[in-house]
Every structure is written in C-alpha cells, then in structure tokens.
C-alpha cells in the first residue's frame, strides 16, 4: 500500500476553543490508483491533503491517527526526512495557478526547483534538459519559450500545466491535486483531467484528486471518498458511489448535480 491514512483527526486550538476540522478519517491508496475526495467547502478535504503533504504547522494544531506513506508515518517523521519526501516522492498542485507560481521567477527555474533541492548530482544542462522534456510532456509544445517566460506571460491553463510539470519533474509516487481545475474554464479543465489521467497511466503516479465537482471525480477516479463536516460519510469504487449510493448525503449530492437536457 502506498498511502494509508488511519483514523486521522485534526484539531485547531488557535483561539482557545478547540475546533475539529477532520474527524477519524481513514482511507488508503495503492500505487497507480486515483482516489477522489469529494465534499463541499469546509468538509476538511483540503486539510486532509495538506496533512498528507506534511504542510500543516507542527504546533498550533493537534493531529491524531497516522498517515503512512510507504509504511512511514508522515505526522511523526523527523523534519529532514519529511523534506526528503516532499518534492521527490510526494508532490502537490494547487487550485490557483495564478498564485501558486512565483511571479518573479522564470518558469524554467520553478520547474527545476525539485531537481535543485533533491538531485544536486544533476548539472545545469541536465536539469534544463529534464525540465524541457517535462514541459513538453505536459503539452507545452513551445517549451523553449515557456522555459524563459515569467508566469504572467502564460494563460491559466498553461500555468496549471507548468505546475504539473514542476510537480512531476522529480518523478513522485504520489501527486496530490487540490482542486486543480476549479480556476480553469471547462475546456481547459477537460484537458488537464486527461493530462492527469495520462500521467497516471504512463508514469504510474498515484493521484489523490480533491474536488467539489462530482462529475470531475466521476471522470477521473477509480475510488471515491465523500466527506462532510470533517468525516468520511461514504467510500467505495466509482461505480458503487454513483450507481448505488447508500448514504443520504451522497444521494443528495448526486441529485444536486445539474443536468443539461436537450
């Protein structure tokens, strides 16, 4: 098992009163699979993702349970061991490709960042070669030009592709995608989804796909967790969730998807 989340609870205690945002969440993800997590805002799906990526602050919040990545617990791991995982084995892409790229850094350098940090054995030429190959692999054909561009010179869809290239360049085993298509328009959305699916197949990267959009989840994932108010209310295969939902909330969610009838 690549990733195993067991009984994870996250609690803030910022303002004196403890506030549970994730409660007893358990799921697992095998290498090469795509797991979708769906839920409304505030359901704790992004918190779960940040916890898996090891991006939650160590103080200021209580974390219980365990997040096993290849058998090792991300929550209790030494900071320097965690850093070895981040960017190399676990990567993440974010919702807003506008703000997720550094506005003052050329695209090339940002794509190479993971290589700079984790593969110091590569020289500049080898790094560039890898970055260009990945820019092409995510569908940016004009890779030489993109390489020297700044983020503001690219469109939203291109920026998200750059994000994906930057995440994939280190050859991770797990890609966490936190609402990666929410800020994009529908056609670009579809392209990004098919890109992620292709990368999943070709590179055997497991994807944790987080979205509030049921139809996207249905298109991309093999298994689904439905979250509400910090708990997983139902989980199972896509067919199970969409054809024979058992939980009331899941049924209401599915019923709420607007259908276009011609």
């Amino acid at each position, binding site marked *: 098992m690549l990733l195993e989340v067991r009984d994870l609870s996250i609690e803030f205690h910022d303002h004196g009163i403890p506030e549970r945002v994730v409660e007893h969440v358990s799921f697992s993800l095998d290498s090469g699979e795509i797991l979708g997590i769906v839920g409304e805002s505030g359901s704790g799906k992004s918190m779960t993702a940040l916890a898996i*990526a090891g*991006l939650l602050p160590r*103080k200021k919040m209580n974390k219980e349970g365990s997040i096993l990545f290849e058998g090792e617990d991300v929550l209790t791991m030494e900071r320097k061991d965690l*850093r*070895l995982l*981040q*960017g*190399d084995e*676990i*990567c*993440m*892409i*974010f*919702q*807003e490709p506008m*703000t*997720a*790229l*550094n*506005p*003052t*850094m050329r695209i090339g350098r940002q794509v190479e*960042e*993971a290589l700079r*940090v*984790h593969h110091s054995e590569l020289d500049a030429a080898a790094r560039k070669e890898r970055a260009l190959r990945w820019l092409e692999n995510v569908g940016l054909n004009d890779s030489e030009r993109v390489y020297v561009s700044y983020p503001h010179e690219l469109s939203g869809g291109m920026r998200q592709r750059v*994000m994906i290239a*930057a*995440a994939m360049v*280190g050859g991770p085993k797990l890609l966490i995608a936190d609402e990666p298509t929410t800020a994009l328009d529908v056609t670009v959305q579809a392209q990004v989804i098919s890109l992620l699916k292709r990368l999943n197949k070709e590179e055997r990267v497991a994807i944790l796909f987080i979205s509030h959009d049921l139809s996207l989840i249905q298109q991309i994932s093999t298994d689904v967790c439905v979250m509400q108010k910090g708990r997983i209310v139902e989980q199972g295969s896509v067919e199970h969730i969409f054809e024979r939902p058992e939980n009331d909330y899941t049924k209401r969610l599915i019923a709420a998807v607007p259908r276009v009838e011609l």
Partner: protein
Amino acid sequence: MPQDRSEDKGEMKKYANFNFICGAVICSLMVLMALVSCFYTPYPSTAMDASLKFARPGLMHIMGCDNYGRDIFSRVMEGIRNTSLIALLTVFIGTLAGVIVGAVCGYFGGLPDEILMRINDLLFSFPSILLALVIISLTGTGTLNVTLALGLAFIPSFARIVRSEVRKQAALDYVQSARILGAGHFRVIFAHILPNIVPVLLSSVMIGFNNAVLAEAGLSYLGIGVQPPEASLGRMLSEAQSYLFTAPWYAVFPGLVIMLMVLGFALLAEGMSEGNG
C-alpha cells in the same frame, strides 16, 4: 477592454518616467560631484585665505567663501561625498539587518517574532536622531561611530516593512508549492520570497537614504557628526548660522544642496514605485 487597460498603463508609465528622469538627473549630478571631489576640487577644501573671508559669490568662487576664506563650492563638493557616503553605509547596515530580522520574524511568526517586534517598537518610539545621539554618547563621535549609530537607528523601520511584506507573501500559494517541492525554510525566504519584495524594499531604501542624509546633516549640525576640518553639509549649515545676515550664501548653498539631494532621491523612489504599479 484590454485595449483600455494597456492605454492606462502607458499613461502611468509616462508619468512615472517623468519623475524617474528628474530624479535620475539630480542624483547623477550629485554622484558626479561626489566622485569628482575625490580627485579634484576647484580649491583645496581646507585651504584658508584671510583676504577672502566672506567673499561674495563670483566668478572666482561661484558659491563664495566662508568665515575662514575657504571656497564654499569645494567644501560643498566634499560635503556631498562625506554625507552620501555616511548615508549609503547607514542604509546598507539598516537594510541588511532589517531584511534578516524582518524576513525571519515575518516568515516564522510566533514568540521570537513577538519578542523582536516589541524590541523594534521600543526602538521605534525614539526618534532615530535621538537614538543615534544616545549611541554616539556611548561610543564617542567620529564618522564611523555616526555611521554605526545611524545604521542601528534605521534597522527598525526596515525590519517592519520587510516583515509585513514577507507576511503577505508567505500566505500565497507559491510559498506552499515551493515548500512541497522540498525547499527548506531559508531557501523559501531568501530565494523565493525576497525577490518578490524587492520593489517595495527598493523604494524604502531610497526614502531611507534621504532620511539618512537628513539625519547625518542633523547630527553634524549638532556638532557630533563629521569632525572639522572635514566638510559636511550639516556642519557647514551649523557654522553658517552665526553669519546668516552678513554672509547668507554660506548657509544658502549647502542647504540648497541638501534639499536637491533629498528631492532627487525622493523623485527616483517615486518614479520607481510608480513604475512597479
């Protein structure tokens, strides 16, 4: 719509360029004077001539002569050099320490931030000249001590600006994505965040330079900055005040040069920050 916006931007740019050009012209004039004074002044700046005491501005001495018969223009040139050298070093010390303190505080937050920022507030509550005075009274006068004292007094304002900017940037997603790519805290601060606050930092450095010029002039005016017979703009003003009515040019020219210098850098800073939007 897009066309409107690009036109707007063009307009802005023209305006910014005007400030920038004026500032650049004045500043380069000052820098030129300071540089030339290193190897050439029309007269030796400390040469006294009793027959030229309070000579009026004229062809021989374009800014006139002072109470010892020294050429004011030569002394102004040297004063620009001394003053701007002190101001430059002051700003350098203030920026360097301010960036480190501010960036670390803003990024990590928590107790160290709280402690450092309260110390900062404490220093801030004294006017920087007063603070420099206290330090100089402990260390003694002299150019180096003045520079150090002013530098220390300038740290809080830079630290505060940098801290708030770093805080703002640290909340953006690109910081998270650099973190998840495995970059360590210090790499994130200095390689990722810092380049993003350079525009803000640059204009505050300019304004800081101005304040340092004024502070140095103030300290020298009080007699604890540059020591005689070295020329400094502030010192000249303080010596000139006793002869304000008999030889007004003695006070007017150094004062005018201080004003021009501050104006030049202010315009430059203005032009830069507008150019950055």
